[in-house]
């Protein structure tokens, strides 16, 4: 069945450091993949999406993600983390008529 797995429940990085949040997918064929961010007391906001094509996709606020078919992965990256990036990040895959989500990774940014 189509699914995504986020192996890290919590990631802590220093402000200004680089970031990678991991997402592994299970999908028969070529998936459509997404990263969302949820700030406190807000809904999910789309960061970026992958449709078959260039494996590296750019998103908002300096985020990018790279699709890898060989590794079944779609990791999220940012070169320099800001304190305002403190949030929960969800990976998702299109599964027929709706999106399936991972369990989320809580990002903590420390000084």
């Amino acid at each position: 069945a189509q699914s995504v797995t986020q192996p890290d429940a919590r990631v802590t990085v220093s402000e200004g450091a680089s970031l990678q949040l991991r997402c592994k997918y299970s999908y028969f064929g070529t998936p459509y993949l997404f990263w969302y961010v949820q700030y406190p007391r807000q809904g999910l906001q789309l960061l970026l999406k992958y449709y078959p094509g260039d494996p590296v996709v750019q998103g908002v606020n300096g985020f990018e993600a790279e699709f890898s078919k060989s590794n079944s992965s779609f990791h999220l990256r940012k070169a320099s983390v800001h304190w305002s990036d403190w949030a929960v990040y969800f990976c998702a895959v299109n599964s027929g008529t709706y999106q399936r989500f991972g369990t989320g990774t809580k990002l903590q940014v420390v000084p």
Partner: protein
Amino acid sequence: DTTVKQNPRYKLARVGKPVNLICSQTMNHDTMYWYQKKPNQAPKLLLFYYDKILNREADTFEKFQSSRPNNSFCSLYIGSAGLEYSAMYLCASRDRVSNSDYTFGSGTRLLVI
């Protein structure tokens, strides 16, 4: 306006009582979704409306009802709340025909006591 609005923001309900959550969107999206989100778990799809057609997940079929009296409005109804219904409920919409992105509401946090 490109937002999905959910009311109320917080809801306190007693065990055994009904609960009705409301979602609205003005983007003329053809599809509206309800997800349940519990701590440390992935958002789980409960049901969705494509136009006037309701699709409910098999494992939550009997627990949740919904109505969509017009394109903009969708409700989620729990006939008799149990403690296990305590969760965040997220509404989302999209236009399947044009393959638009999903737009999510801010959620309703339901606490059943």
